[in-house]
């Protein structure tokens, strides 16, 4: 066992492993950069960096062809940690190296945590509009909403991924099962008379029978969206209620009654509700005088707490709360979320805020600070040592020089 442990340590401690891993990461970044043309930035992150292995499909089989970001990063982390434990001694003289390497470890851990827990959303707000939710730019959900109560809606949100998996979904708040009959990750919708070659629709309820859903290739381009189309069948205890076509392209909800309650189905961008609401008071888009070159975008917003049941979101555009100005490089941080000024629309009447939830957002800053301090400390140690030697030097060389001249 002792021998095995030694082998384990020697493998992870070796500088050769470090160099190999760094070379592998260079190759990985290079390949990913080239592939970004085809996959876009999100696709590349998923395929190359947020993966243990880079997989390539051979026929229907995914085959690992190269270590992915998680694997290389994980080994680098293990390499760094074991090297620290086994090689470096905990002395004041090595403080700088400890700090710099500690920062590096923090950076690696921070990136891993960001990849795993960071969530990105967007919030579009028209001037005067109030919202207490942000919407995903990439993911969709099917909202099955019980609208019977005039005061509030009860929502069951089913992620698109769960619909794609196809397994029947039964939720305690729904008196029926939701079964995916057909799923297209990206589809265009056409009125049936405009699409003479479309096959028969599986939909029997709502607007589906009038619409042809035509599958199109999945897009990875950053400026394009995939618009899924799903045929879902709702099955109650007494049998099927029918099959509906749902898609974010259908803007409006589809309503029906069942079990004495009113329901609506909406496929929409995945929402993340927050316990406060934002009201856009004013969006400002300044340009340099006499040009169209943007100088500044800013959104003045009011933040109001949302009470139980989310009352503020409905009518919270009035007074109360606090105001904040969001502009480039000055995001609003509140409630664990960061709101960045991302874009605008509608002739400067709509602002688009990027909403990021990343509990590990501080780690890269701490890591960089630790690396900087570590390098400064290390440099100062060397500088001080060098200066001391230099100060001691003038006394010492004289006898040596004298000796050198005398000896022959």
């Amino acid at each position: 066992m002792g021998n095995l442990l030694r082998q384990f340590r020697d493998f992870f401690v070796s500088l050769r492993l470090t160099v190999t891993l760094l070379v592998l990461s260079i190759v990985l970044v290079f390949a990913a950069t080239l592939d970004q043309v085809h996959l876009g930035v999100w696709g590349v992150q998923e395929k190359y960096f947020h993966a243990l292995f880079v997989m390539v499909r051979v026929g229907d089989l995914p085959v690992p062809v190269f270590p992915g970001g998680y694997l290389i990063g994980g080994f680098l982390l293990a390499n760094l940690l074991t090297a620290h434990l086994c090689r470096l001694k905990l002395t004041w003289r090595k403080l700088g190296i400890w700090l710099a390497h500690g920062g590096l470890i923090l950076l690696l851990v921070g990136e891993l945590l960001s990849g795993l827990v960071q969530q990105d959303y967007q919030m579009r707000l028209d001037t005067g509009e109030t919202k207490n939710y942000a919407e995903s730019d990439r993911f969709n959900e099917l909202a099955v909403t019980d609208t019977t109560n005039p005061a509030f809606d009860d929502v069951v949100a089913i992620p698109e991924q769960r619909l794609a998996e196809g397994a029947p979904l039964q939720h305690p708040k729904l008196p029926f099962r939701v079964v995916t009959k057909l799923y297209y990750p990206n589809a265009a919708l056409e009125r049936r008379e405009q699409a003479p070659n479309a096959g028969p629709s599986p939909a029997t309820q709502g607007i589906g029978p009038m619409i042809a859903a035509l599958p199109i290739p999945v897009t990875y381009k950053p400026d394009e969206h995939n618009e899924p189309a799903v045929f879902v069948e709702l099955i109650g205890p007494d049998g099927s209620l029918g099959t509906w076509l749902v898609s974010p392209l259908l803007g409006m909800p589809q309503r029906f009654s069942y079990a004495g309650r009113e329901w609506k189905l909406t496929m929409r961008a995945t929402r993340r509700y927050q316990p406060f609401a934002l009201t856009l008071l004013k969006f400002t888009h300044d340009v340099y005088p006499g040009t169209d070159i943007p100088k500044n975008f800013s959104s003045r917003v009011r933040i109001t707490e949302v009470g139980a049941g989310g009352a503020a979101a409905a009518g919270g555009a009035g007074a109360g709360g606090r105001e904040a100005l969001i502009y480039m490089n000055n995001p609003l941080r509140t409630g664990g979320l960061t709101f960045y000024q991302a874009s605008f629309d509608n002739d400067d009447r709509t602002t688009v805020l990027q909403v990021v939830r990343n509990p590990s957002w501080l780690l890269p800053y701490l890591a960089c600070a630790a690396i900087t301090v570590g390098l400064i400390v290390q440099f100062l140690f060397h500088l001080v040592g060098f200066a001391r030697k230099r100060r001691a030097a003038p006394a010492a060389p004289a006898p040596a020089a004298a000796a050198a001249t005398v000896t022959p």
Partner: protein
Amino acid sequence: MTARASVFLAAAALLLSACGRDEVTSYRVPKEADPVMPGAAPAADASSAPLAPMAADAGGAPGMGAAAAGATMANTAVPTANGPSLVWSAPAAWRTKSGSAMRKGSYAVPGPGGAEADLSITAFPGDVGGDLANVNRWRGQVQLPPLGPAELEGAVARFQSNGLTVTVVDLTGAGAANRQSILGAIVPVSGSTWFFKLMGPTAVVAAAKPAFLEFLRSVKAP
């Protein structure tokens, strides 16, 4: 030992990555207004939206205002095939129609007694289900029963023209009055499938068959 270390690290990463699985959630929210019907919105708003939604409040507006929906449909992404477009020359007697976003080409084909048949040319990525599914879809449109896989070859004619393989099917509709027929052609072109469908009263389609076949022979990749 190296292998053991790899397995350990891989397992740790897998466990960590399994944390983020999407779950079904439920919550209560205040009532919110449905989106404004796109047709009612000012034109500037509708055009600046990333993808204009379609009116779909099937319960509230069963008729789904055709004009409004039609107008927004024009803004949706069109699922026609990418890649090279085919070109063709149509007989002078055929009247070019304005077509739709879906169609690559659209003609009114005149026949005896002033009746007209409709020729639509569309293209989609992939094989769109294959020849059998498409022939059976067309058969369904003229009230014919579907064919089995073994019957397909007997029902279609294939020929090569300008380097393209053209699969032609002649479907005379069932029923006595108002009989409709389809003359269809399926042409695979570099990963896409092009459909040429002449549909109309049986007499018009039958009379236009020689011209249609001649037209098909003019189809070529640019």
